[in-house]
């Protein structure tokens, strides 16, 4: 192994992991406020396709980024309306969002599949992803607003009693999560690929979801976890190239198994669970009760 090869591998890890950081950090904030959004995969795909279509039609990167973000705002806004105002089951609503997003993105993108575009330089987004993790970490632990978000996620009834508008705060965190997922999708179709293909996010939404749990809802650990997950995926390809006889599937299932182990570890102890997971996660908030 020479130094150039190592730098080459690190470079690939850096480029391929960034969508996980975006989607993961968004979902982390959503979950910190007590809402579990299983719709990441759908949000990412729609974000990817709207950005791509706008770029093909207008040739303008700014517009394409803008419309990608708007798609995230609209879709996560619908999710927020359902789970917050209509108090629907978060799991079912999130799954509906994923299924809907997979279908919608495939339909919209049909005419544009295979159209060549000039990709954006991924390094801007990589820098932004690091900054975002830093900002979210700072926001959640050091600012008053971050404290309020966490309070809403820990005990929405107390937060309401203290005079905070639980629904409004959750709207904001859900939409933040949605926009981050769209950005992850945008990055995949505009910087990483760069192209559009049906279902091109390839399950990254679910890995991002696992990542938040793996990181025990802490931004810095999320960044480290993302690079571990991303690194394992790249390592698998390289090990196979060298001729290591371990089946690639075992590397691919590593993120999920690691998340399971972390989940068991934090859940088996009540104190540990309280310190890691937001207590009101996936519990609907009803004002009347």
């Amino acid at each position, binding site marked *: 192994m020479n130094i150039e090869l190592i730098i080459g591998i690190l470079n690939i890890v850096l480029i391929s992991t960034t969508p996980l950081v975006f989607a993961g950090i968004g979902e982390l904030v959503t979950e910190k406020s007590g809402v*579990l959004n299983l719709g990441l995969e759908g949000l990412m795909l729609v974000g990817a396709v709207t950005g791509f279509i706008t770029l093909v039609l207008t040739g303008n990167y700014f517009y394409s980024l803008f419309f990608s973000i708007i798609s995230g705002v609209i879709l996560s806004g619908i999710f927020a309306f359902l789970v917050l105002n209509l*108090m629907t089951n978060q799991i079912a609503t999130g799954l509906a969002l*994923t*299924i*809907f997003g997979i279908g919608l993105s495939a339909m919209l993108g049909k005419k544009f599949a295979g159209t060549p575009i000039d990709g954006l330089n991924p390094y801007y987004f990589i820098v932004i992803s690091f900054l975002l993790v830093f900002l979210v970490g700072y926001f959640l632990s050091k600012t008053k607003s971050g404290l309020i978000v966490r309070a809403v996620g820990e005990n929405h009834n107390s937060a309401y009693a203290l005079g905070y508008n639980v629904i409004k705060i959750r709207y904001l965190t859900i939409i933040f999560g949605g926009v981050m997922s769209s950005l992850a999708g945008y990055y995949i179709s505009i910087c990483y690929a760069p192209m559009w293909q049906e279902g091109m996010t390839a399950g990254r939404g679910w890995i991002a979801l*696992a990542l938040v749990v793996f990181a025990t809802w802490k931004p810095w650990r999320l960044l480290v976890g993302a690079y571990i997950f991303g690194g394992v995926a790249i390592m698998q390809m390289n090990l196979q190239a060298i001729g290591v006889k371990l089946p690639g599937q075992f590397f691919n299932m590593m993120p999920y198994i690691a998340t399971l182990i972390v*989940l068991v570890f934090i859940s*088996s102890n009540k104190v540990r669970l309280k310190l890691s*997971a937001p207590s009101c996660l996936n519990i609907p908030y009803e004002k009347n009760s």
Partner: protein
Amino acid sequence: MVFLIRVQLREDYSNLIFYLSPLVAVALTLFFGSFIFLILDLSPIESFKIFFMSPISNSYGISELFVKATPLAIIALGLSYCFKNNIYNIGAEGQLTMGAIFGGGIGLLFNDSTSVFLLPLMILFGAIGGAFWATIPAILKTKFNTNEILTSLMLTYVALFILDYFVVGPWKDPAGYGLPKSMPFPDAGRLPVLFDGLRVHIGVYFAIIICFITYIVYNKTLFGFKLKVSGLSSKASQYAGFKYKNLIFYTFIISGACAGLAGLFEVSGPIGLLYRDISPNYGFTAIIVAFLGRLNPFGIILSSLLIALTYLGAEDAQLFLKIPSAVGFVFQGLVLFFLLGTDFLNKYRVFIK
């Protein structure tokens, strides 16, 4: 002028709205669906004909409808046990895959068998495989207090990679030109079809039997009563002395076994061998089926037929309207959105003044 919308918790519980809301959701889906067709420059009426009528206009189509509805109904019936108990097993896709691996593995192990016992053995192992995969989240939930939503979801992906490993590695067909698929099962391991030349198989009978058993369990047995109570309040059920942890176990095992059964039926029925994509998301779609059927066994049969139609319609739409078959997912997503939304009216009264 300002409209103020006020909501109030219903004190009475309306059965009518409860069973009417799936119909409202379907109607709303069709309404919004027609907009989607309009955006795509297609006539909504023509498109709906192709989407919902042409797939079932001949005997082959009707057979295909049952082929698609069977796994959905079986999985959703199993899931209804979990959902009634307020346990969110969303890993049916993984349990289905495990069932296919276990049952299909038996078929590959005895690939020169002509015994009449081969198929029953495969069916048994299919159910065991699914149940086994479902016991993992059940154990983690009861012993370590782990969130079953996340664990069952993670295990789904683990199961998919295990299947991938087998069909790429040890079980790959040596005569398969290196394609990631297994050898075909022997004839003794294939599910009998009901009519010659059509793909609809005896899995339909299983779905109907499971439906009736489920109806009896829910309405006539103590177990069904315990499920209802603990679904409404796990505290009340514990106070009444029901062993809540056992209930979690039983419901997981039942739903896992059903999903495993459905997986085995898929591979030993229409497919006939093991390969990567044995299920077009049946395990996740069955969650929609269960909700749309209101966790009622007969409702689930009806909703499984409706959702199966979205699969078929999507295939026809791809063929004749040149739109991706993923349009079926759009309809499935929409119907679930609207169903969940209309449930609000079931719980609350809405006033506008």
